[in-house]
């Protein structure tokens, strides 16, 4: 079961290397080295293009601290990431539980695969479809008015809730599948043991099942929280007026004005913040597991 320590024989970088090398070499060539170039840029006054003169500077990082705008947006993005992650847990975890512990046989396999399938369609097209659902006179509005006796106007499109709905929709499969992976591995006899000791289902969930599925929850949460904090597409399109986030200002630096040094600096600050949050969260989560 979980938590067993690897034993003495399994030590040493040397044995690990053949397995690690291909993946990390690939990452190095395709990500780490390119990003290092970006790190380099983030300390420049100008891009070294077309013979422009550039100099070493910390200004780009200083900008983050001197303009309130960036901090405000970073906090907004962190909050967005947190909210989306929480919603994904709330929606995805029970589904993973049902999938792992209630469904049996083929239907389980089929649903396991079907959960991710919508994400093989184009993200933008999906967002257009959400517009159809969420806007005034859209599907949600029409459907609710057909059912409800009184008239309400629902126009969620171009609002913060729309951003949340769109992002949760895009990311909830990550939570379902990662939680499934660890929930499915929990031995049923542990649940039986707990119940024989008088624990209600809820208590079992809190005391045994959630701690044991923690690795999946953590993996899912990381795979959701981290990209959502830096997201710009969904907020921009679904958020309307309210769709300005940290990710969108980074995008602006790259797309609207040619200020890569500042854009890169903002990204690395984001990365640092995210890593610090993950590092701070990990002991807490470990203790819970």
């Amino acid at each position, binding site marked *: 079961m979980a938590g067993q320590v690897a034993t003495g024989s*399994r030590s040493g970088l040397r044995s690990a290397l053949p397995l690690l090398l291909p*993946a990390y070499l690939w990452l190095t060539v395709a990500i780490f080295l390119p990003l290092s170039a970006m790190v380099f840029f983030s300390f420049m006054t100008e891009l070294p293009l077309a013979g422009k003169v550039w100099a070493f500077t910390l200004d780009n990082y200083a900008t983050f601290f001197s303009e309130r705008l960036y901090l405000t947006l970073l906090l907004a993005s962190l909050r967005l990431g947190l909210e989306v992650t929480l919603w994904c847990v709330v929606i995805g975890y029970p*589904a993973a539980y049902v999938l792992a512990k209630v469904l049996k046989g083929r239907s389980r396999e089929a649903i396991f695969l079907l959960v991710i399938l919508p994400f093989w369609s184009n993200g933008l097209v999906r967002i257009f479809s959400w517009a159809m659902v969420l806007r005034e006179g859209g599907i949600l509005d029409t459907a609710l008015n057909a059912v409800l006796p009184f008239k309400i106007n629902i126009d969620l499109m171009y609002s913060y809730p729309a951003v949340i709905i769109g992002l949760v929709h895009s990311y909830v499969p990550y939570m379902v599948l990662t939680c499934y992976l660890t929930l499915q591995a929990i031995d049923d006899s542990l649940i039986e043991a707990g119940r024989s000791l008088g624990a209600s289902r809820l208590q079992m969930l809190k005391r045994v099942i959630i701690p044991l599925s923690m690795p999946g929850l953590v993996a899912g949460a990381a795979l959701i929280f981290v990209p959502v904090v*830096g997201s710009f597409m969904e907020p921009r399109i679904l958020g309307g007026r309210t769709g300005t986030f940290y990710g969108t200002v980074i995008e602006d630096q790259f797309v609207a004005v040619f200020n890569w040094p500042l854009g890169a600096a903002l990204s690395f600050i984001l990365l640092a913040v*995210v890593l610090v949050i993950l590092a701070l969260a990990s002991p807490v989560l470990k203790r819970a597991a």
Partner: protein
Amino acid sequence: MATTRILEWCGRLYIWLLLAFLYLPVIIMALMSFNVSPFYQLPFEWTTEWYASLWQNDQLISATWNSIEIAIITTIISTVLGSAASLALYRYEFRGKKVLQALLFPPIAIPWLITGTAMLIFFFGVGIGRGLFAILLGHVALALPYVIVVVSARLQTFAPELEEAARSLGANQWQVTSRVTLPWIMPGVIAGGLFAFAVSFDQFVVSYFLSTPGQTTLPVEIYAAIRKGFTPEINAVSTIIIVVSMALMLLTARFFKFGGEK
């Protein structure tokens, strides 16, 4: 017993509701591929013209094939490399392991726009240039962290005694891995693969920067199109892809078991 049944029934219902939520946009997308208006305009008017014109749209079709090819190759390479790396991170203790694990997050945390730009510059600088190969290089790298994180989560539930038992029976490292460990983590590997496919197939930014004219991918075509010439041909091709993959998946689920064993 009765409560158990009711709870089970609620559980099933919940799963169907979740699937409904997940598929809602997809269904709309599919419906709109049969709607006359290219702007999702209602009332709905049935047409198959978008499918007909899709047939003529060589560029979209070839981009779709490129996307499928790249996604499949990305899925294969990243699941293999990623699973191997996860195994190493699980099995061995060594200095710097925490750093390697932390290094998985930059590709996820840094917006793809920046990563894509960085790749473009770097690949240009070292002579890899642009093209399908460069796209593949980028996609695999973006998918790898997902695979490693997911497979590692599953590995946490693995009982090391099973590896010991296999070794005591004379199995070498490879046999232990392929016959004992891999079957156990298979659901994780498959989930990782599904994520990798999704990451690659819906990857716009990196493909966009790294593609050359005439050798693009579907998302690149779609994003370029929305500026001026969006047509529901895009819905049509997406619908075809979803329907075909759904059929393949259901077939897979019918004949293979991988959801995990007890």
